[in-house]
């Protein structure tokens, strides 16, 4: 039947024998081409995923050790120490800490003692001082303090120092390794999770260095960036989409916005250096300038995203609103913008994520400074996550190698989080027509 049916349709065309060898081999070739295309795609994906896996695993491999920190937990009896309670900050904390450390390994000669004290972070006195100032009740009896080990001994505890290399070729002497093993034997050395990585500001000592300054600097910059680019971007997009006449001028504006979105970020950094720092005299290294520069960078993308999402709201909604007597601004603010908002928010979060990972413009405006306290506001000098990574990568101390990778992982974590929020918003609130 089917043969007659097809010959009915193709009047005048000789009937094709689909079962002939010629047709069979053609069919086979076409199926093979399909399978090949599929295989190319699969190989491409495996290739891309492979690189991602190499990147992440190398970061985890080098960075995982920075998520723990070797510390000595030491009990100090402050009730017997000679401390003037009215001037806590000025007491001899160095003596207090050294005395407590001395009690762990008594009977060392002076030169041996020097070697012994080298094992602990040189800022131990400030850690104890700050803990006591924060909680003066610690003065009344015994309390325990956690003193991080200095970087070379942290490396030793993490097994990154080969004990078999000759003594002259490592930062820790045989004698110090002996003292370290004694302390381990006494059970006062442990390796808890390195919260300092998140709650300390930068330091020149790897064992104390953390990302608090960089994270809050990035937060303030992104806040400024959002506060500026979000309303401006939406206003510009609404005007271009809803009010602007179609003429040469608006075409020119549109082309330029698209071009601006493709301008390398370092150019915006140079612009910020010349305009915000040069003409307006804004403070160097401050998150406000970083945020302004980043908002210049995200604005074009945000305008484009907002326009697309306004456009995707069906015109029937706009027309119905206008039809029942709503004015133009009522139609926009009551109907179109709320419907477009999930997409706009998704776009905004993704552009902010891009701004978070941006380092070039921030380097130019001096956000790669060394500052040992996190900023309290947008006018105080600070670093940002990518610039902090940049600085740590350049530090000679061994501990910063692992910390650089750890900082990259933290940055990647924030990016994944932001993109996750964007995906959630899209899945949860986006309307499709």
């Amino acid at each position, binding site marked *: 039947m089917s043969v007659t049916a097809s010959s009915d349709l193709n009047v005048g065309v000789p009937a094709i024998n689909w079962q002939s060898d010629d047709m069979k081999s053609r069919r086979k070739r076409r199926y093979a081409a399909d399978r090949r295309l599929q295989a190319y795609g699969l190989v491409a994906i495996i290739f891309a995923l492979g690189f991602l896996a190499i990147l992440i695993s190398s970061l985890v491999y080098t960075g995982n050790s920075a998520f723990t920190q070797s510390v000595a937990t030491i009990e100090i009896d402050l009730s017997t120490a000679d401390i003037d309670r009215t001037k806590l*900050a000025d007491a001899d904390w160095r003596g207090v800490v050294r005395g407590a450390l001395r009690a762990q390994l008594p009977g060392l000669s002076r030169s041996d003692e020097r070697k012994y004290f080298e094992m602990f972070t*040189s*800022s131990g006195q*400030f850690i104890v001082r700050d803990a006591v100032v924060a909680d003066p009740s610690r003065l009344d009896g015994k309390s325990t303090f956690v003193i991080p080990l200095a970087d070379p001994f942290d490396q030793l505890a993490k097994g990154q*120092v*080969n004990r078999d*290399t000759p003594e*002259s*070729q*490592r*930062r820790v002497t045989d004698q110090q390794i002996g003292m370290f093993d004694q302390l381990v034997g006494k059970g006062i050395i442990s390796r808890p999770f390195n919260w300092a990585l998140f709650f300390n*500001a930068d*330091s*020149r000592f790897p064992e104390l260095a953390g990302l608090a300054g960089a994270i809050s600097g990035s937060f303030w910059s992104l*806040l*400024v960036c*959002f*506060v500026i680019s*979000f*309303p401006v971007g939406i206003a510009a997009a609404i005007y271009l989409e809803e009010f602007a006449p179609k003429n040469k001028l608006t075409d020119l504006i549109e082309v330029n916005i698209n071009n601006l979105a493709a301008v390398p970020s370092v150019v915006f950094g140079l612009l910020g250096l010349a305009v915000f720092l040069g003409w307006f*005299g804004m*403070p*160097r*290294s401050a998150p*406000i300038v970083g945020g302004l520069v980043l908002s210049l960078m995200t604005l074009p993308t945000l305008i484009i995203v907002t326009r697309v999402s306004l456009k995707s709201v069906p015109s029937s909604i706009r027309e119905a609103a206008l039809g029942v007597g709503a004015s133009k601004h009522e139609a926009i603010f009551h109907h179109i*913008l*709320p419907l477009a*908002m999930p997409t706009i928010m998704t776009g905004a979060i993704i552009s902010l994520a891009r701004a978070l990972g941006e380092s070039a413009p921030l380097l130019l405006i*001096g956000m*790669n*400074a*060394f*500052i*040992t*306290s996190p900023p309290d*506001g*947008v*006018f*105080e*000098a600070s670093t940002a996550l990518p610039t902090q990574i940049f600085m740590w*990568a*350049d*530090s*000679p*101390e*061994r501990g910063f*190698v692992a910390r650089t990778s750890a900082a990259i992982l933290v940055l990647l974590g924030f990016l994944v989080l932001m993109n996750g929020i964007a995906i959630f918003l899209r899945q949860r609130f986006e309307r499709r027509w």
Partner: protein
Amino acid sequence: MKKLLGSCALVAIMMATAGVAVARDQIKVTGSSTVFPYSQAAAEEYANKTGKPAPVVESVGTGGGFKAFCGGVGEDFADITGASRAIKESEVKLCADNGVTDITEALIGYDGLSIAVSRGNAAEWSLTEEQIFKALASELPDGKGGFVANPNQMWSDIDPALPATKIVAFGPPPTSGTRDAFVELVMHDGCKGLPGMADLKKADEKKWTEVCSRMRQDGPFVEAGENDNLIVQRLEADANSVGIFGYSFLYENSDKLKDVKINGVAATPETIADGSYPVARPLFFYVKNAHRDVIPGMKEFLEEYMSDAALGPDGYMAERGLTPLAPEKLQEAQKAVLEGKKFGS
């Protein structure tokens, strides 16, 4: 939605007014990337000890530092700049033109440049400056008054006693102060002794400087970027290559790298301090005296920076790789800085 936008704007305004109300209470330090780690150390100690706002320390290079420092007097300009060489005439003039006439020079110590190879390399390395020049210069004198492109590909081409391995040297790019120092301290010295160069220097100093300064670009010398850690990693990967970087990187990585002796002298804190190691340079910082009584904490910060605990032979800067000054020189420097001795007087 309106509420969200409104509160964002409110927050922004509150922050803006809060920030403007306070003038600058942080000390600003800029300048050389070589002095940067030492300024970092002083800044951290100062902030820890006094509890005052932490100084902002930036690393922009010696030249860039002077540009920022000499820009003028006032809150917008840096208070202190680090330098891996003494201030130049032109920079003194730039400062003076912008009203920065009263500055104090502080010599803080010495920095050694080191050449190193991986510990995986079996040979005992010792090079003379002339051999280094012959290995890394772009052109060599041909002995007849002219120049030929550097023909040396193997170390043994220069001297049969050297290892028969390919010349591969990782070094800093031209923007780096380390590169300037290397060219000046090693290449120029190595160049001097070659036949005909003394005459050329007398006849045409510009040509001499050009020939003696230019590093080869045909492969054996690799510009490895400003990141010295990267050079360390590459040396580990290729045991036959040598690397050029600041002494602090050799010191921190002494388990992975070994020193290449220059003119028979190994880089150690002792040889750098007594001047017998040929590739060492003085490090300075410069203070703007007009800011001393205006920016809070300047006096304490300078006291911290110049203290024996910082710059002394057992100080925390020596721990970071700075080669300390001799005791008399240190006292002289401390006195100059604390009294605000005017530069040039």
